[in-house]
């Protein structure tokens, strides 16, 4: 097995973990669970990009990984500041009904 096959194998493994985490997006139950699943992909994406960058010999992908890592928190901040409260209230309401 060549070294690049090794990198691609690990990238595939990380992509599969992302696929599994998507179950949480569909099932929920709370909006927080769904959002965290998307956040997990931000982290796995960094790993996938670093591995692909090595395997495909494209150092430019490390910059893409840098941007992923830097901006992953922005969507989470938007969620906490603008959506979360109303989302939880709504769920509390639907639980009561």
């Amino acid at each position, binding site marked *: 097995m060549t070294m690049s*096959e090794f990198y*691609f*194998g690990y*990238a*595939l493994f990380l*992509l*599969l973990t*992302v*696929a599994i985490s*998507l179950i949480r*997006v*569909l099932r*929920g139950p709370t*909006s927080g669970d*769904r*959002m965290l*699943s*998307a956040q997990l*992909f*931000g982290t796995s*994406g960094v790993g*996938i*990009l670093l591995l*692909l960058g090595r*395997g*495909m010999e*494209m*150092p*430019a*992908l490390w*910059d*893409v990984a*840098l*941007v*992923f890592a*830097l*901006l*992953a*928190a*922005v*969507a989470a*901040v*938007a*969620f*906490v*500041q*603008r*959506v979360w*409260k*109303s*989302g939880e209230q*709504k769920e509390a309401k639907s639980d009561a009904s």
Partner: protein
Amino acid sequence: MISALSLFDLVLIILLLWLAWHLLSARDLFRATVLFITYGLLMSLAWVRLKAPDVALAEAAIGAGITGALVLVALGRFGEAESDEAEPGSLWLRGLVASAALGLFALLGWAVWSLPTEMAGLKAQVFERMGESGVENPVTGVLLNFRAWDTLLEMAVLFLAVLGAWSLGEAEEPSMPAPGESLLALVRLLIPLIVLVSGYLLWLGETAPGGAFQGGAVLASGFVLLLLAGVRPIPSLMGWPLRAALGSGFALFLVVAVAVTGGSRMLLEYPPGWEKGLILLIEGVLTLAIAVTLGVLFAGGRPPASPGAGKRGEKR
């Protein structure tokens, strides 16, 4: 044995199709939003696999930094009025729509299938004349020199988008919780890094994937972060300085385009020896203009007329 890379591509394609289907058919808007954010990040990986790192970088910056926050904030504004339980149309109507969509799909599929598999496009011409472009990254060479006209018009489109958004109304003061300690700490940590990375991407554009759009999008996420943390813009900057920054990219590009014209040179034909300097100047201003434009679009309207300024006007 199938290589790990082709398996990776296969899983990626299946995931993209699966996500697209679920986000379009989701009744819960929040679920669709999260799926959309994930879809954008996965698209970035797809661009990587298509060996288009420039597009992957732009998709990562815009997808992670801007559209995710934009869609979430839009959802927050919808609030309770979200559940749109539209009656599904009659079977006949649905059949009609489905066959029209399938027909379009078949047409597009046929168009893609009939393309020649080995297509050089204009690649050979671009690589042949890279020496004249003033930069080393072919994508920047095309965007800022060979086809600078397209980029100039793109800036006009961005400017028009702001005019459109501003003519719809003032930016609303959002209701949101006061930023906690951790959020403020995060902002203090991230903003300098965002500025640094934005400048880095801008500088990188000369030799590697990067440039004004990527740098501008990263810088714009800094504005998004500040707005989300409830940091108010300095009122004195919200008047003409903001408008000047919004127009600066298009204006400077236009000035350069006209200024280099003359003699036998056409519009946007940089004089030999000046290419690199002019491209760097244009890209630098463009980065700021794009960042401010995206930030303003995120705010969602023209800055509200500040009550202080209004009162002062009344006294006079």
